Structure formats: C-alpha cells, structure tokens
C-alpha cells in the first residue's frame, strides 16, 4: 500500500477553480517532483496537504489513515488539524525563519513546544538540542548554530528551514519552490542538501522549476497544467518521452537555451 494516496482533490477560490481533481500516490522513500508553469496549482496542492488550505473535495490518505475526506462535511477542530499537519513538513519558498531566534533556536522551538518541555527538564532539552545539532550538521551549518537568520545567506537560511522542518520528523517533507528565491550558486547548495536527504530514505514532494533536479533526483514526476495532472511517470518517461502536447510545449520552453 502506498504511503500517501491523494484522490481527486478539488479546490476553488471564489470562482477560480485552482485544483480540478488531483490524484496521485507516493511510496515510502520516494521523491516526487511536481513541475508546471506558475498558476497551475502546484503550491495550492502542497498547501492542501499541509492543511494551510482545506480542499473542497477529494481525499488524502496517509498510511491507511484518512486525513481528509471531502465527503465528511464536519470541520475538524483546530487541535485535530494541528495533529494531522505533523505528518507533513513544509519548506517555503521564502524560508520564513523566525528572525528573533538563532539557528539552533529556530530548529528546536517547535519541538520544545510540541512536547511541552519545561525549562527544568534538562535531560529532555539536551536530547532535543543534540537532535537539532545533528540535523543542522546534516545541512552543513554546524558552524552557524548561534547565527541569526539575518546574518545568513538565502541558501543558508533555506537549509536551516529544512533542518527545522525535519526536526519534527514528518512522514512526508514538502518543498514549495525551495530555490526560487535564490541565485544559481545558492540554488546548488540547497538542492544538494535535498538530494542528500533522499539517500536517508525521506519521502519528499518537491515543487520545483529546476528541471535538472527533477530529472536527476526524483523517482516520480508530475506535470501539472491548469489544475490537473497532465502527465505523470518516471523522470525518463516524462522528460524523455512526453506524451501530452502541453508537457512537450512546457519542456521545450523550459529547456530552451537563451
């Protein structure tokens, strides 16, 4: 059974239908790249998975547990939604680090709050910090533990954001165009980190405009157009042998050299 099953997700903002029935499945340890032009609904899809938006129809099943079912009209309480969110992590395009906290505090804050760790519980605090330090080391920023976000480059900030999301050990880590705000050099260092996570068996969904990343790192690629899954398959299938007209046109444009 797939780790994540997304069925027929619909989402409408006012009269604009942004998602027109999205379905896909994801196995544990897989990396899914979602590509497509701006406005095709990629970000909205991620936001629905993270319950920042509530889908109108469809269902989201994770590990056999139904997290969202459009048939069920009863709205979940804030508390239940919060618990469901913890299955997913989200790394934003604009990092959204907490500016008043240093790197280590950014990574540990949510964990401490989640487990309601009091200041007296030295043992637990030490464990959380050790955990966070290991994650920060994994994104290559051990020398920046006490630095504040404003003292870091965009690439470094995004790597902290990745460590922060990992600290809660989500089942699936989502990336919403993680490198769109970065220059090519910094893009490289962030993509390298994401690639490194793949080898550690993390399940990831990456919305990206980096075609080479999708081609080389992803196990599965979805091309979205106009709120629908236009084409899906392995990178070889989607990039090497695209079937839909729209996919062909999109790939041609994005691979065109100027």
């Amino acid at each position, binding site marked *: 059974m797939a780790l994540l099953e997304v069925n027929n997700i619909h989402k409408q903002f006012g009269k604009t239908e942004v998602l027109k029935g999205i379905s896909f499945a994801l196995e544990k340890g897989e990396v899914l790249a979602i590509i497509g032009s701006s406005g095709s609904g990629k970000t909205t899809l991620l936001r629905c998975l993270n319950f920042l938006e509530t889908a109108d129809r469809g269902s989201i099943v994770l590990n056999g547990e139904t997290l969202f079912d459009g048939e069920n009209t009863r709205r979940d309480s804030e508390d239940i939604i919060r618990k469901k969110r913890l299955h997913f992590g989200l790394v934003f395009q604009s990092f959204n680090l907490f500016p008043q906290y240093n790197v280590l505090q950014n990574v540990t804050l949510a964990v401490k709050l989640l487990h309601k760790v009091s200041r007296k519980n030295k043992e637990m605090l030490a464990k959380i910090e050790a955990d966070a330090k290991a994650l920060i080391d994994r994104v290559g920023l051990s020398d920046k533990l006490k630095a504040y*976000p404003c003292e870091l480059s965009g690439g470094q900030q995004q790597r902290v954001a990745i460590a922060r999301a990992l600290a809660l050990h989500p089942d699936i880590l989502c990336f919403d165009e993680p490198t769109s705000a970065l220059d090519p050099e910094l893009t490289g260092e962030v993509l390298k980190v994401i690639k490194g996570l793949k080898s550690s068996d993390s399940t990831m969904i990456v919305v990206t405009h980096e075609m080479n990343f999708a081609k080389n790192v992803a196990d599965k690629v979805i091309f979205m157009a106009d709120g629908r899954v236009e084409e899906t398959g392995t990178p070889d299938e989607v990039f090497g042998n695209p079937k839909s007209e729209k996919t062909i046109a999109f790939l041609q444009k994005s691979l065109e050299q100027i």
Partner: protein
Amino acid sequence: MFLDVTLELLKGFGTTLQIFALTLLFALPLGLIISFGSMSRFRPVRWLVRTFVWIIRGTPLMLQLIIIFYGPGLLSNWAAAVENPNVFTQWLAGIGVMDRFLAVMIAFVINYAAYFSEIYRGGIEGIPRGQYEAGQVLGMTKTQIFFKVVLMQVIKRIIPPMSNEIITLVKDTSLARIISVYEVIWTAQNYIKLDGIIWPLFYTGAYYLLFCGILTLLFGYIEKKLDYYRS
C-alpha cells in the same frame, strides 16, 4: 526663592508623573484589547471599534477632558430637576460633580488607548503571513504562534512609534490644568497669581525636558537591545 520654587514645582510635577504613569498602566493593555477589536473578523465589532477610535483620535483631548469632567455634573443637575423622579434619575442626581483627577484619568486612558491600539494594529498586521504559516506547519497552536513567534517581532516594530507617543503623553499631561488639576503648569501659574512672577512657568520646561530626556535614553536602550536581529 529659587529653591522654594524648585521644590514646589517638583510637587506639581509629582502629579504630572502620576497622570503619566497611571495612563500608561491602563492604556497599554486597554489599547491591545481595542486593537483586537479593530482587527475582529466579526464586522459589527470591527466597525464599532473603528468608529470609536476615529472619534477619539478625531477630537482634541482637551475637549474630551472637558466633556468627561463637566458631562456627568450637567446630567446630574438635569436629573435633579426632573419633575417625576425615578430610580434612574435619582441615581444620576446623586453623582454630582465628577472628581477632577478621575476625570483626567478616564480621558487620558481612553484617548491614549485609542492611539496605542492603532500602533499595535500596525505592528501586528505588519508581520508577514509566512511567519504564522511557518508556525502552523510546525504544529504550533494559535496561542504559541502569537506568544513565541509574533509577539517579539511586534514589540520590535512598535517600539519607535510607541516611544514617540509616550513622549507626547508626558507633555499632554499639562492639559489636566484645564480642569484645575494641580500638576506642574498649574503650580507655576499660581506664582503669577500670587507673587506676580512668571519665570517659574518658564522653568517648568526644564522638568519636561529632563524627563523626556530620560525616556529617550531608555527607549534608545531598548531599541538597541532588540537590534540583534532584523526581520
């Protein structure tokens, strides 16, 4: 003579400081409540609160002071003269003249709470949505997001406009003189009436200046303390 005046004015300035401190004590929290009202998702509440803020900010504090001081007395007189008194008019008639200091406090607290609420609102609305969303996807509750993520950033944002408003408050306390509360200006004016000298009135400026100077240093210190990060 100089020493006498200095000490006498200091007494008056004590009242000034009292108005100042009590206004801050009540208006700072009240302003926060008003700001939540003016950001309410419930339209009638938002509309009502914003109208209230508009009225308070749109009229002079001096006028508000006069209305709050004389208003109850006038109502009380009217109630006492009503031909068929009932429980309500009897109660009104019993109010009599408002206590001067209480009138000053009510007027100042309401007035400054309205101004503070707009500063809070600006500070809270200026926090990018991404900060809330980052907290949400990290599984924080709304309360945790407000206190652990947003609040410090709001404080940093509002310190400069707040210090401005608080320094204005120091000087606005002199309006209390209009209803004969014995603050520093009133004390100095007494010298004109009784001794025919005007220099004590000029001298009061030194008190305001010194106190505002201390506040400026204090706020400068706080700003510097919060300068370790940029948002």
